[in-house]
């Protein structure tokens, strides 16, 4: 109950026009961090401080922030893998059909993250796996970095000697989480279009983890490498061939500032439907939606479901040449920099639609609200998964909801720009 309906007071650490223009167009008022604020678009460093035990910060009911306190359970490469592995084992233990394995011991429905090990902790386990297939390529990624920094490919054990636990040189590799790496089996057979490798960037908004309610932004995009793909070992260290990050590609000789190497997801869909057919294309997109939801379900139990929080994630997905999607990583702070004119429009609209969902009516928020926005404000978002709605279905939709299975009555397909309606899985 408010006597005066004032304007929303906002703060941000991220000085990007796509954000600020959106705040200003709503008539919100900029304030400083130490003043009374209602909406704070924080960097990940700030969120760490706000929710750290030492500061004892308490958010009031009319304050909203754009990160969950322990988002890193999903957005740190090693923790994401850990949580997914744990989730799978739990499902297996309870005998869930989702955890079904095939004759080779691979999960049928939950094998969407490439084989990954933490280094140096799992070094010996990694070596065992490596030796099973010594001609394989692996990708080394620092756990705490972004934008492709510090990533390199290896195909020989000698290249990662210094991460070995009992190596003589391991003394200067700090065991602290900052220097930790993950090593994953490299997907050396990515789907190529025009001979080039690409990945998908999809935006997913989570308003609450328990019950899980998440939205997928319809306008994702593909990021193409500027250089033709080759798995040849002589090009393993050519980042322009292998890493799709714009931060990397924009330094290439052939980077183009007009299109920025980006394709819309609808172009991808048109191309795949035209060259591969509608069924396999629908199946691919169904699987992509599936793996996003599963990844969120995996971390939901450990997430601090603070009611002051929402989060817009940048999901990175790679499709291999068998049209299987792989979850590469999830970003808590997807870039709001615009590399092209279209990019700027897309990100502006993304923030606009995100704010419309997170801050209803653009008014001073009340974190106790039910976080159920009306359909009309979704903009370019569509409901990806709504746990409450799925439960109120009353039917066991576990089996019917898996990709490749015929969907139930509600799982019809909307053909709006050819995309299937997102089924609700239990």
């Amino acid at each position, binding site marked *: 109950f408010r006597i005066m309906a004032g304007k929303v007071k906002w703060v941000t650490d991220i000085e990007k026009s796509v954000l600020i223009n959106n705040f200003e167009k709503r008539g919100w008022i900029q304030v400083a961090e130490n003043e009374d604020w209602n909406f704070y678009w924080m960097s990940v460093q700030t969120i760490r401080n706000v929710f750290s035990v030492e500061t004892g910060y308490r958010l009031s009911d009319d304050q909203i922030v754009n990160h969950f306190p322990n988002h890193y359970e999903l957005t740190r490469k090693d923790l994401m893998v850990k949580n997914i592995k744990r989730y799978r084992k739990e499902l297996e233990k309870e005998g869930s059909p989702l955890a079904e394995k095939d004759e080779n011991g691979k999960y049928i429905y939950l094998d969407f993250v490439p084989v990954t090990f933490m280094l140096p902790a799992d070094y010996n386990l990694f070596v065992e796996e490596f030796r099973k297939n010594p001609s394989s390529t692996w990708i080394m990624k620092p756990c705490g970095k972004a934008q492709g920094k510090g990533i390199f490919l290896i195909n020989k054990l000698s290249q990662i000697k210094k991460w070995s636990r009992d190596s003589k040189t391991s003394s200067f590799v700090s065991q602290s989480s900052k220097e930790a790496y993950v090593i994953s089996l490299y997907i050396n057979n990515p789907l190529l279009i025009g*001979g080039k490798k690409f990945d998908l960037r999809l935006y997913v908004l989570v308003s609450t983890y328990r019950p899980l309610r998440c939205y997928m932004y319809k306008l994702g995009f593909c990021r193409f490498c500027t250089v033709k793909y080759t798995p040849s070992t002589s090009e393993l260290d050519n980042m322009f061939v292998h890493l799709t990050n714009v931060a990397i590609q924009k330094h290439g000789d052939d980077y*183009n500032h007009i*299109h920025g190497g980006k394709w819309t997801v609808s*172009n991808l869909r*048109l191309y795949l439907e035209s060259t591969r057919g509608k069924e396999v294309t629908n199946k691919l997109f169904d699987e992509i939606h599936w793996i996003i939801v599963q990844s969120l379900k995996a971390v939901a139990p450990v997430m601090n479901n603070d009611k002051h929080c929402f989060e817009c994630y940048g999901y990175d997905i790679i499709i291999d040449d068998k049209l299987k999607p792989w979850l590469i990583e999830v970003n808590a702070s997807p870039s709001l920099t615009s590399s092209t004119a279209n990019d700027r429009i897309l990100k502006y609209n993304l923030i606009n639609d995100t704010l419309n969902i997170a801050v209803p009516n653009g008014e001073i928020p009340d974190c106790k609200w039910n976080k159920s926005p009306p359909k009309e404000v979704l903009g370019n978002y569509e409901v990806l998964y709504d746990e409450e709605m799925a439960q109120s279905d009353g039917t066991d939709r576990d089996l019917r909801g898996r990709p490749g299975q015929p969907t139930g009555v509600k799982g019809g397909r909307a053909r709006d720009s050819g995309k299937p309606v997102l089924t609700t899985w239990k």
Partner: protein
Amino acid sequence: AFQRPVNEQKELLNKWNEMGTDEPDLSLFRPVYAPKDFLEVSLHKTKLIHPNYENGEQPSFRNHLGLIQVPLKVKDIPELKEDFSELGLNIGQLGIDDSAQVPPEFFENEHVRVGQKVLAEQDSAAAQQYVRQGCPTALRADLWALILNISNQPEDILYYEQLKSNVIQHDLLVDSLIYKDVKLTASNDDYYFVFEDYLYQVLLCFSRDTSVLEHFTYSSATPPKSYIQGKLGMEEYAVFYPPNGVIPFHGFSMYVAPLCFLYHEPSKLYQIFREMYVRFFFRLHSISSHPSGIVSLCLLFETLLQTHLPQLFYHLREIGAQPLRISFKWMVRAFSGYLATDQLLLLWDRILGYNSLEILAVLAAAVFAFRAVNLMEVTSLAAAE
């Protein structure tokens, strides 16, 4: 034409799939001509033709204000309605009647089913009739191949490989025009940049394909000739240059680009493009009296606009924005680069279905009609664009 040295041949063969990253220095090259140059030439040439048609008649009322003043016969709306009856409002169309709000049982499902049947029976004539209502995306590649009679037999693949080896062995001056065109157009296009390397492969082969010369028997254009050094004027020493007789103009690669969404196998992509060119696209950049020729399309466009939107036409003419100057480039390119690819492909479905390019003129006029309210308020050509 120069024979490439052996090491250059080897290098080109290795780089065949990624020519986009290795083009020669093009800074001194400019496109031979662009659509607006072609428009000027067409207008000039048609004015020259006109005197031959003197028969004492008054200038046609229907197009007395337009740029094209040649008395070619073009259809009016009632005739168009009859010819294009499948595009009537009461008939289902893909692109409209398959949108999210329409239950698929109304039209889409049945249409897809019929399409699959047509393909199963490999009935080319039925396919041509079928695509008038649009192709389902998953069936389009096969339906077009059926209509164009492309089956990608081993001998076709061999022919393509031979063209490819011609490219490897000899370079042509026209190759630089091709590189330049791709770099200026498709490489900068949001939809087509991905396929840059395919465009080089197709166009370099195309320029060496002498079978394309056959279309000159029904085109009113003539292929440019070149004479062996020292033998100028002696017919027995004349060769066509480029070998296929077609000099690419600025934007030429945009004829190929949309096809890359449908065919990812180079020799099939090549054959489809070649067939599309010799059946349709050549008419868009050569002067003739054919109803699908660019001159007739221009006249059809202007006539439709003047007849049905006279106020708009007068207004645009007054402000120095002759509508044809805006729409010419759309028609010459068959709208490639001016429409989103999914819409463009639906448009090209109808070109194949009706075996006519007239729909380009009708669409161009429709665009003006659609924007009429805004256009009435502009005061310059730039604003109109």
